[in-house]
């Protein structure tokens, strides 16, 4: 659909979108709104757990041990403001893409040996791994890396560097393996 951009000449001509510092500052301000309104920063992965627990309670309460789950969590799953935040995130991404165009302008596009589009299996398996990890750690890139670090939470300052470090090691080793294979 937007492949023309990938072949659109010199790299300087690629529109990379707004400054990341501007986007970051705006996300920071948004998080301040959340701190003030909810006494809690933006968090995303908890809403996935709530949604899964609500679905499990309706569809298969016994096989999913939903009663034990609620007892262990000490509160029943709820579709709350955090759930609506995720709904909003989906719709916000949709609105921005519809009104302002898809943002495919990645500087890595015109480099050799870059990561291709993921296969559905890689996307789903990666998503599954990281969500289980996020719930083990009680937070993800938003709850820990954005909001927890901003509050100086020890747990978030342990989780965030470790998570990016592990991801970086694996992504780099995957790329060098690919590069070796590609040059043959």
């Amino acid at each position: 659909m937007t492949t023309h951009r990938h072949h659109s000449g010199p790299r300087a001509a690629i529109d990379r979108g707004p400054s990341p510092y501007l986007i970051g500052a705006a996300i920071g301000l948004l998080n301040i709104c959340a701190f003030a309104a909810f006494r809690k920063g933006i968090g995303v992965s908890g809403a996935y757990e709530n949604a899964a627990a609500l679905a499990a309670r309706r569809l298969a309460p016994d096989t999913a041990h939903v009663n034990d789950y609620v007892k262990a969590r000490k509160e029943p799953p709820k579709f709350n403001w955090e759930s609506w935040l995720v709904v909003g995130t989906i719709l916000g991404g949709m609105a921005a893409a519809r009104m302002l165009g898809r943002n495919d302008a990645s500087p890595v596009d015109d480099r050799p040996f870059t990561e291709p589009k993921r296969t559905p299996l890689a996307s789903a398996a990666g998503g599954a791994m990281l969500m289980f990890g996020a719930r083990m750690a009680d937070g993800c890139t938003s709850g820990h890396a954005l909001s927890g670090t901003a509050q100086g939470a020890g747990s978030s300052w342990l989780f965030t560097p470790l998570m990016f470090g592990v991801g970086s090691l694996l992504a780099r080793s995957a790329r060098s393996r690919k590069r070796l294979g590609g040059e043959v």
Partner: protein
Amino acid sequence: MSAMNDGTRNALGMAIGLVFGALLQRGGLADSRTIVGQLTGDDARVAKTMGTAVAVGALGHRWLHGRGLTTDEPKPMNPVGLVGGAVLFGAGMALSGYCPGTAAAAAGSGRREGVWAMAGMLAAAAAFVATYPRLKKALEAGTLGRVTLVGGTPARVAAPPLDVVVRPRATQP
């Protein structure tokens, strides 16, 4: 603010989500290649975006906190859950090129890989719900409770270093 009813909270959560999703998409973070590019060191936008967001958020949080308008809610320091979770999370992020928020923005912006990632996430969340009662003990083994880096326990956190910077400027006018 805390007296908000559920309807107001939900509407505000939705509004924050809308802006959040649009910002992620405009910042190129709804594209898995941007995130993988950060991990491989080819693209620094994730670090620039998140670094700025954390810095602005931290200043705002201190400011609000000094006025009693927000609280510290550090997630508990559970070494097992955090280290195990971070390893799984990093591996999954390298594989999918997403995290829970960016996948939602990606799915909304029409990227099929974002939809697949979200499907995997929901499946894993269900698996977590089913196994949590049995995992809880292990995840919380050796917990240190709610720890903040400045000032020890949340109750005592006044964050002197930042207060010194923020307070005089705020009291001048």
